[in-house]
C-alpha cells in the first residue's frame, strides 16, 4: 500500500469538468506519491470549509482517486451535501487540502484470472484508475440511476451500462450484467465499488458462484487514517473493520454482508 506524507498537502485545482451529473475535479499533484487503485484521499477546500470560519462542512471528506495523469490527480464528484457541494464550486487556481493516498487498494488478479469491474454511480471512480493499471482484458459493467449519471461511464473504456430507468443500456441492475458475465467466465475475479445495496448484490452473487471479489466500501469518515474508529463495518464472524485502514477495498470473504445502514450512503444508488 502506498503511504501518505504525514500532513495534508495544499494542492491547486487545475480544473473542474462536467461529466453528466458528475464533476471531475482535477488537481495538480506532480510530487504526490503514486496511489494504488482503490486508495482515497481526504479532501477539503482551502476556503469556505470548516470550524475556524465555517460550520459544515467541518471535517474533510473521503474521495477515491479516480485517475492519475500528467501529474494530476482526478476525483469524480457527486454533489450530495455541503462538502461535495463546496468541492463542486471549486475553480482552477483554488486551493485544496489533500491527505493521502490512504487505505488499502485493490490487489492484482491472481493466477491470470480475468478482471470484471462492477461499478455503481459515483462508485465507478476507483475502477477507472484500476482499469488504467490492469494488464490484460477486463470487462466493465456499470450501473446508473438515469441518463445524466450514465454519462459517467465515459470515465472507463468499453463499459457496458445498465440503468434503473432503462434510458441507457440494460434496463435493470448492473448485477444482472454481472450474472450473465460470470456465466460466460466463471473463473474471473470481481472488483466492485458502489452503493451498499449494489455491493451486497455483488457479494452474494460471487459467494454463490465461488468467485473471488474485492469490494471497495464506503463509510462515514472523520479522519481517514484510523484515528477515530468511526468508519467501521461489521466483519464476518463478529467485530468490526475500519474502512479507512482495513479497507476501503475489502475481500468479500471478510464480510457477512454489506450493510446499507452501516455504510455511509453515497449519492447515486442504482437500485
Amino acid at each position: 500500500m502506498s503511504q501518505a506524507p504525514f500532513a495534508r498537502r495544499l494542492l491547486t485545482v487545475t480544473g473542474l469538468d462536467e461529466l453528466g451529473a458528475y464533476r471531475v475535479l482535477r488537481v495538480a499533484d506532480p510530487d504526490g506519491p503514486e496511489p494504488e487503485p482503490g486508495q482515497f484521499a481526504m479532501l477539503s477546500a482551502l476556503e469556505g470549509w470548516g470550524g475556524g470560519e465555517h460550520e459544515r462542512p467541518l471535517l474533510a471528506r473521503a474521495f477515491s482517486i479516480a485517475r492519475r495523469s500528467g501529474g494530476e490527480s482526478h476525483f469524480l464528484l457527486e454533489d450530495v451535501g455541503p462538502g461535495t457541494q463546496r468541492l463542486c464550486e471549486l475553480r482552477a487556481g483554488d486551493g485544496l487540502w489533500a491527505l493521502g493516498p490512504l487505505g488499502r487498494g485493490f490487489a492484482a488478479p491472481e493466477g491470470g484470472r480475468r478482471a470484471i469491474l462492477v461499478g455503481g454511480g459515483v462508485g465507478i471512480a476507483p475502477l477507472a484508475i484500476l482499469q488504467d493499471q490492469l494488464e490484460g482484458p477486463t470487462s466493465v459493467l456499470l450501473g446508473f440511476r438515469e441518463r445524466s449519471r450514465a454519462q459517467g461511464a465515459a470515465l472507463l473504456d468499453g463499459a457496458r451500462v445498465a440503468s434503473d430507468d432503462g434510458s441507457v443500456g440494460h434496463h435493470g441492475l448492473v448485477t444482472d450484467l454481472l450474472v450473465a458475465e460470470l456465466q460466460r467466465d466463471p473463473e474471473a475475479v470481481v472488483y466492485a465499488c458502489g452503493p451498499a445495496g449494489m455491493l451486497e448484490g455483488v457479494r452474494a452473487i460471487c459467494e454463490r458462484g465461488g468467485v473471488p471479489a474485492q469490494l471497495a466500501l464506503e463509510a462515514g469518515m472523520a479522519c481517514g487514517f484510523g484515528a477515530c474508529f468511526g468508519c467501521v463495518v461489521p466483519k464476518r464472524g463478529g467485530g468490526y473493520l475500519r474502512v479507512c485502514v482495513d479497507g476501503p477495498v475489502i475481500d468479500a470473504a471478510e464480510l457477512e454482508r454489506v450493510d446499507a445502514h452501516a455504510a455511509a450512503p453515497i449519492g447515486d444508488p442504482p437500485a
Partner: protein
Amino acid sequence: MSVEFCGLQLAHPVLNGSGTFDVIAARRAFGDQLLRDFPFSAYVSKTITLEPRQGNPPPRLWEASAGLINSIGLPNKGLEGYLAEDLPQIVEITGAGAAEVPLITNVMGSTAEEISRLLEACDAHEQIAAIELNVSCPNVKTGLDIGSDPRQLEEVVRAVRPRTRKPLIVKLTPNTADVALCALAAQEAGADAVSLINTLRATALAPRDPTLPAGRWLGGGTGGLSGPAIRVVALAQVAAVAARVEVPVVGMGGVQSAADACDLMDVGATLVAVGTESFRDPVAAARIAEGLRAMGAA
C-alpha cells in the same frame, strides 16, 4: 517551551486527546515519517477496559454544527490484548530511538475493583509513564456515574490510588453540575492531575430521507459532541477547575489553533490536548505547538 508535568519533561505543552489518534494505524498510513515528525509531546492511548470491547454498531459519527458527535463505544482489545499486542507496537513508535515521548495509558472501569486491576497492570510496565483514568465517557453508563458525582468519584479514586506509583491523571466528565467539585474530589483522593473536557452528551436523528430508516442516527443511540462547538464550554470548565485545584490541569475541547490553546493556558491549563482537529489535520498539534512558541506563550 519545554514543560514539566507530573515529573515528566515534555518538549512542548500539546498532547492528543485519548481516543483521537491511533499511532499504530497512523504508522500504517503514514509510515515512519510519523516517528520523525511526531506531533504530540506525550502520547495518550485510547481508553482500555479490563475485557475486550467491540464498540458500538455503526453509524458512529455525525457532523453537527461546528462539531462532531461520536458514538464509538470504546472498542479495545482489553487489558491483556493491549499489553500483549498494542503496547509493544506503540512503544516502537513513541519510545527510545523513535518519537521519544512519554506514553500515557488511558483506562476505564466500572468499579474500583476493575480500575485497581487496570492500574496495577499498568504499574508493572515501565514503558507506561503515566495513567489517565477516564471517568467521563458518555457512551458507557458506568463511566458517567462514577465521574459525575464528586463523592463517588472521591471514593473510587481514593480506593484505586495506592495501586500505582505512576502519575495518575483523572479525566473528568463535563456532563456534571459543577466540574470544579469533581476536580477537587479527584485531587483530594490523590490524583496528580486532572484533564478535561471529554465530549458533551449529544444525539442526532437520521436525515429525513425516505431511503434511510428513521430514528436515531447513531448505532449507539447517543454520543458525545467534540470540536469547535464545545470550545467555549471547555474554556469555562477548565477555568472553573484551574481556579480551584492545585494539581496541574490538562485542558482540551475544540482546540484548533494556537490562540485556542493559549486561551486554555491563560485560564490555568498546564497542558493542552487536541482531539477532533487532528482528524482534519493530523499534524495540527505540531502546528499549534509551533504557534504557541511564536506567541511566546510556551
